[in-house]
């Protein structure tokens, strides 16, 4: 059990923090993309893996966070320290309202209503020109004021985007640690019970819908945080970010890594972003490759990468004992 005590979040974080110095600017860009996608996919997995809710509209909360942060920082020129929590709050509120209706429905109807809400968000983002910039989106979202970072020795000679990278991965590490604590807490255990057997959970006095709604709001909040960071990282927020196919992409990330494990979706994010870079170098048919990977996953490795490694590990250990 001692192996479990290794603070993996801290190790990965420290490793990631060295990338601006040891890697190229492109490496930093990729690492930031991976980190943000990892937070997004892990937040989805709180619903998908932990609570057993198939949300097909998780991108809505990512989008609400991205637009809220972008609008506050660009249009209202508020500082990041206010805009970022506000983005999470907006996503949480929207998740509370939409989730209230969604958790009343079961299975496929739940998936459909989440999809419907995400398309409503898309329609608003796409058409409400005054607020969201419509189909032009919101370009040129400013970086937060990072002068305080420049005064820290050793960080002064970094570019602004590298300083923002450090800030982003620190925030993401904290968010992931919180999400991990949540899944390990008694609350998280109840969510797993709700997933495995909602009827029995209800019999032992668990308010199933309330727990599902709570999970929905928490997942939405962290998706909102991921979206807020993504808007600044990609220097703009566009309606394309909220289209329904993006929800499917983040589901593929979670599934590729393995939805049965807390860290699975982050491994999936790493693998998918890296694969995307590697494959788009020599073919434009990335969706074809992604679809093929998805087929292989669904039919051959439903446990994903982490699930596959886990099975392998169990088998090796079993053989050694025998």
């Amino acid at each position, binding site marked *: 059990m001692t192996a479990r005590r290794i603070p993996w979040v801290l190790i990965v974080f420290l490793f990631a923090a060295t990338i601006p110095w040891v890697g190229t600017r492109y490496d930093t860009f990729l690492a930031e993309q991976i980190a943000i996608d990892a937070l997004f996919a892990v937040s989805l997995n709180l619903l*998908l893996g932990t609570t057993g809710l*198939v949300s*097909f509209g998780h991108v809505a909360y990512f989008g609400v966070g991205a637009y809220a942060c972008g609008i506050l920082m660009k249009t209202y020129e508020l500082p990041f320290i206010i805009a970022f929590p506000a983005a999470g709050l907006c996503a949480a509120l929207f998740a509370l309202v939409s989730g209230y*209706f969604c958790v*009343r*429905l079961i*299975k*496929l*109807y739940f*998936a*459909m*209503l989440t*999809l*419907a*809400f995400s*398309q*409503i968000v898309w*329609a*608003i983002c*796409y*058409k*409400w*020109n005054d607020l969201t910039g419509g189909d032009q989106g919101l370009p040129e979202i400013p970086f937060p004021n990072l002068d305080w970072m420049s005064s820290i020795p050793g960080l002064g000679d970094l570019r602004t985007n590298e300083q923002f990278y450090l800030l982003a991965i620190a925030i993401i590490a904290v968010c992931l640690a919180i999400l991990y604590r949540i899944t390990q807490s008694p609350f998280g255990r109840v969510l797993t019970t709700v997933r495995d057997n909602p009827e029995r959970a209800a019999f032992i006095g668990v308010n199933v819908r309330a727990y599902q709604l709570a999970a929905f709001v928490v997942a939405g909040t962290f998706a909102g945080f991921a979206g807020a960071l993504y808007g600044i990282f990609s220097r703009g927020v566009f309606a394309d970010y909220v*289209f*329904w*196919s993006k929800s*499917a992409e983040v*589901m*593929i990330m979670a*599934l590729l890594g393995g939805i049965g494990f807390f860290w699975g979706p982050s491994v999936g994010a790493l693998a998918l972003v890296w694969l995307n870079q590697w494959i788009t170098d020599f073919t434009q*048919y990335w*969706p*074809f490759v*992604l*679809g*093929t990977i*998805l*087929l292989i996953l*669904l*039919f051959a490795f*439903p446990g994903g990468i982490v699930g596959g490694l886990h099975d392998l590990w169990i088998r090796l250990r079993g053989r050694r004992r025998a």
Partner: protein
Amino acid sequence: MASSLLFSQFMGGLTTAMFLFLIASGLSLVFGVMRVINFAHGSFYMLGAYLAWQGMRWFEPWIGGFWLATLFAAGAVGLLGLVVERLFFRSLYGREELYQLLFTYALVLILGDVAKFLWGVGQLSVSTPPALSGSIPMFGTVQPTYNLFILLVGPAIAFFGWWMLNRTGIGRMVRAAQMDREMLDALGANVGLIYTGMFVFSSFLAGLSGALVTPIQSIVPGMDVLIIVQAFIVVVIGGMGSFWGTFWGSVIYGQVLSFGILVFPSFSLFSVFALMAVILIVRPWGLFGRPLK
């Protein structure tokens, strides 16, 4: 003046509705029988359009070239449906809905790229068949004959679907499969064959609607993911699995979109999504559907 504007909005909405019905009816059938949302239905529709264009290149000089091309496209997509169902879909019936949804999404990704690979990313278009290329004056407006033809095809398919489901032996089997798959299986019916048949028929309809839309819409990559959302809304409004529900759902969708543009120009898209959300909240099984167990 004002009334002719209203009439042309009404007719425009009705034409949209009939196309959507052709597409959504297949989606609704597959949902009703197999309890699966087939995202790839939009891709089948797109392939139908591309195949119709391809067929036109071969058959255009012949008499009735457009109709041959349409049949060719619908048949080819139906065949594709057969292959997909037999090879892949079949093994997913017992699995969780997450895997089924993502499987159909994998098809969306793959078929979208296959279409790009075969036909490029440019716009393609097909000319209206000569017999229907004119237009007819009606109530101070001019309606293209082809649109009027579509207004006949929609109800014809709806009637055929209703007749097949409610007045034939096959339809009785399909309705039984909707209600209780295991029981039907235990009674000795070949449920697998029914599923395959329904999937092929649904793909055929998708291919047919893709082919029929080509004279009035250009064929572009991305038409698959756009149409599936609309078809999905229609099916949700009318009721998953209900044939007439899908028909009236399309009519409502078409009219809301058409008149929504007059009232709130920039929010007509929003109004249909909002309508869908309200229906899912109040009656998740749709206006004409029945609740699932």
